[in-house]
């Protein structure tokens, strides 16, 4: 059975159809990439899966349960955690406290939450900024914090919306490694990212949106060769190759 199954999901903003009847699925332990031009509807799609937008049509099943239209917190408790493309750290709290908030989903004990948070921070490489106030972090660090916080909720499926943006190529490699580590922990990942150096090597499957519609789906190789994808999204691939 698929971990996440989405049937004909649709979202409109006034006249604009941001998502039109998109169906797809993610299996347990899978890494799926979601790519597409700016404005294609990726973040909107994430927002619906995570319960932040009410779909105008279609259904979402997680672990066989219909979670369409459920609240974000319900969906999170069930095991789907998202990050935000436009980061939303708890600014007045320290890095550690931020992550503890995530950890509290699975434990009520502050000591345990703290231990888990420290572990996650170690894992994500933020351990040396434990007691920084989140507002003092650079954007890239804030994105890492988003990731750490989400991880601390112990999700089964992690929705990452451009958490790898803004890294140097070396840092990108580290990030890819980090994602592999997360995956090793048995967490399925659904990743939106424009940096092909991240998406292509790690995704088992890639879904492509354009203008709110799904235009392609397949292995990274298949998708990268798809002329529609090249035309509307990848453009000339020379810079990708150079990575």
């Amino acid at each position: 059975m698929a971990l996440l199954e989405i049937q004909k999901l649709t979202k409109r903003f006034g006249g604009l159809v941001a998502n039109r009847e998109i169906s797809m699925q993610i299996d347990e332990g899978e890494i799926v990439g979601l790519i597409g031009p700016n404005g294609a509807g990726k973040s909107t799609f994430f927002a619906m899966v995570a319960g932040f937008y009410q779909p105008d049509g279609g259904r979402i099943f997680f672990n066989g349960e219909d979670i369409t239209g459920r609240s974000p917190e319900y969906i999170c408790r069930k095991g789907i955690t998202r990050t935000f493309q436009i980061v939303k750290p708890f600014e007045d709290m320290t890095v550690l406290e931020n992550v503890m908030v995530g950890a509290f989903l699975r434990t009520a004990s502050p000591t345990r939450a703290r231990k888990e948070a420290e572990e996650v921070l170690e894992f994500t490489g933020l351990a040396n900024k434990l007691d920084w106030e989140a507002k003092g972090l650079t954007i890239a660090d804030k994105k890492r914090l988003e990731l750490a916080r989400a991880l601390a909720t112990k999700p089964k499926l992690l929705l990452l919306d451009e958490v790898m943006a803004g890294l140097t190529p070396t840092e990108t490699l580290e990030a890819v490694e980090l994602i592999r580590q997360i995956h090793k922990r048995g967490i399925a990942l659904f990743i939106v990212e424009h940096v092909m150096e991240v998406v292509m090597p790690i995704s088992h499957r890639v879904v492509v949106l354009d203008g709110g519609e799904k235009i392609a789906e397949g292995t990274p190789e298949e998708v990268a060769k798809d002329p529609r994808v090249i035309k509307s999204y990848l453009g000339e691939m020379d810079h990708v190759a150079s990575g």
Partner: protein
Amino acid sequence: MKESKILSQENASLQTKIVSKGKTVQGVLLFFASLALVILPYVVQQPFYLHVFILIFLYAVMGGAWNILGGYTGQVSLGHAVYFGIGAYASTMLMMEWQISPWLGMLIGMILAVLVSLAIGYPTFRLKGHYFAIATLALGEIFMIIFSNWEWVGAAVGLYLPILPSVWINFQFTEKTPYYYIALGMLGLTLLVTRLVEKSRLGYYFRAIKNDQDAAKALGINTTYYKMVAMAISAALMAMAGTFYAQYVLYIDPNSVLAMSISIQACLVAVMGGVGTLWGPVIGAAILVPLSEFTRSYLGGSGSALDLVVYGVLIMLIAVFQPAGLMGLFGRNQARRKEA
């Protein structure tokens, strides 16, 4: 990379040491301060000064109650007088109608306040920022008008509490000292509750909600539920203060226990002291109450409103120079450490 990690760990343990040393110093100070407060009535024989202390405790409880919702959870309520009023009216009516001891009345009032707070919170917690603040303000006024027209609770005429023998069960005393200890006890309770909240999951969730509700939801926090929890705790403590007020002043009417000014005072105390901090409301009350009492005593008799001019200027000065509240004067080092 590895090196820097080790370094920072060292740093961290160093910091913990400093912090724990700071904590012991704090603990010792706290112990002596509490001791001083406990023996104070034996030293200070002037009832008026005891009265001022009682008011400080009372306002610190109100500010502390407000702080749970407004300070930690970031939901600025300007209608907390509702719960204060419920506390005052509930214990008074129970006493007058059924001779129920105000102590029990206080508990019932707290429960009623919690119920009302949930009824208020459920619809209004979908509002954000100023919309929520004004909605609570409006609801506060609505309660005030309803009580002013409600015959059974004395309407606008208010209620004169019957003078009962000065025994503990009656929560009425001819002397100040018992009131002093009760108020001190209530303050202790408020601080304890705040401390427990602060250190537990609740406290983290409250602060998360204050910072970013969407992010909180994404981490599985049922924001409405936790806001209601904060509101309920806040309302219960506020109602407790309300009962105390009624028993202390022995006359209540909508104007004195349900007025907007009560809500604003509770908020002001917390803000001046420092919102979202344990001691903020205490410091706020310790500054504001004497300020108001003494400016009025020394300047108020002239009838020129000079006292309130001075009061207004002082509030502006504090807000301008210590916008994070007077706690900022104490907590600065800690804040630096976190930012650095």
